[in-house]
């Protein structure tokens, strides 16, 4: 009974997450368009993209590993859906367990890993350039990302549970209203642009240099799965940031839900602004940026949070 219930919960949250993720990716595109003084796509644009891709032919290149090629886009959708389901369970049912923060960090890397898996199985030269960049980028942004996740965990009395971090902020106010909170928020905001693969760090699928990078050989619904996973992540990662740093108002009733959505939109718009005001970095520049200044400031933030400020 329990298994069947959790299966249907997973399916329903997949539908919910894909609808809201596609809508959020439309908001992202629309804001980008308005910043560039354009009109921008209509509201159904992301849905039309996915439906169109589901109707296209799926080409599996000769000399590729067929099973891995088809399996890895599905893996990326499943992983990002599980991430989203965990956050929704925390928000809706106050459900969590000790150590789910660590599990969440692991699950968030799986979409990037599945891009690496799919790109390497396609056997394309440009895809191999793309996956080498994606791998280096994964190694580089994980370090400041984890630094920024440790800070709220320390502030909530050394916990590894998402729900305790969220409830700690309900009692003591948002994490962002402290020195280490501000430092951590800025770091996680920048590191999440690497996580989402948006413009300053989109060198893994740079269209103008390596023609789509790791996704170059994907077509039809398999490409659609990657786009869907990316849209779901665009919903999940800002939500994660809100839970870690911008908590403080428990979701009871309609008004507090509106405040929560407003917080989410602020984080989303900040990420969109970062992506629209920066050029693409080379891999050595982004590695130096992430492992240099950002990690140093992150360690400083951890030390400050240990001293309790």
């Amino acid at each position, binding site marked *: 009974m329990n298994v069947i219930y959790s299966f249907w919960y997973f399916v329903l949250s997949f539908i919910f997450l894909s609808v809201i993720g596609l809508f959020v990716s439309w908001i992202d595109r629309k804001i980008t368009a308005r910043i*560039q003084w*354009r009109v921008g796509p209509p509201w159904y644009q992301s849905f*039309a*993209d996915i*439906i*169109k891709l589901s109707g296209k*032919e799926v*080409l599996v290149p000769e000399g590729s590993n067929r099973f891995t090629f088809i399996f890895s886009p599905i893996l990326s959708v499943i992983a990002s859906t599980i991430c989203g389901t965990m956050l929704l369970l925390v928000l809706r049912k106050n459900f969590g367990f000790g150590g789910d923060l660590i599990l969440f960090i692991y699950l968030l890397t799986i979409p990037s890993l599945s891009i690496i898996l799919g790109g390497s199985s396609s056997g394309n030269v440009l895809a191999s350039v793309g996956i080498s960049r994606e791998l280096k980028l994964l190694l580089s942004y994980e370090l400041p990302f984890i630094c920024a996740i440790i800070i709220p965990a320390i502030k909530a009395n050394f916990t590894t549970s998402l729900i305790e971090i969220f409830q700690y902020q309900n009692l003591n106010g948002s994490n962002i209203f402290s020195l280490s909170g501000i430092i951590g928020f800025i770091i996680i905001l920048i590191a999440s642009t690497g996580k989402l693969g948006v413009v300053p760090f989109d060198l893994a699928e740079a*269209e103008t240099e390596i023609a789509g990078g790791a996704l170059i050989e994907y077509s039809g619904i398999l*490409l659609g799965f990657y786009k869907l996973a990316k849209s779901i992540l665009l919903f999940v990662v800002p939500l994660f940031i809100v839970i870690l740093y911008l908590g403080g108002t428990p979701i009871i009733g309609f008004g507090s839900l509106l405040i929560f959505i407003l917080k989410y939109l602020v984080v989303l718009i900040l990420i969109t602004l970062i992506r629209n005001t920066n050029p693409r970095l080379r891999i050595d520049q982004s590695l130096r940026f992430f492992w240099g200044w950002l990690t140093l400031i992150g360690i400083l933030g951890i030390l400050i949070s240990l001293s309790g400020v």
Partner: protein
Amino acid sequence: MNLKLKALKKSLWVYHVSAGSCNNCDIEILDLLTPRFDVERFGIVLVGSPRHADVLLCTGIVNKKCVERVKEVYEQTPKPCVVVAIGACACSGGIFRDGYQMAGPLNKIIPVDVYIPGCPPKPEAIIAGIVKFLKEIK
């Protein structure tokens, strides 16, 4: 009219094939994709790989070196796809129709759906051509 065709009409991802063009049409296509003309209104986005494309924007007379490449790109594009011949050269050969390198206008090599004449056609003309085509297909 089914949903997938409707979705295809609303989200055309274009790939630019330059088959021996004199670069004029290519510059006009680049103009077309700038914020000024904003083709994302119609869901048109430039993609980097023919595997992602729905529309092939082909320019230029197809010269003898390009024939194999153009065929290859057409075969790599997942169907259904639309081929647009842009400029006088791709439509009919233009001023290079008697050239020694001429291997045909585009429709000798691959099936063409839309012809947009002009030397080079303005971005407005390209938008008008594609929008007219979208109204025609059912």
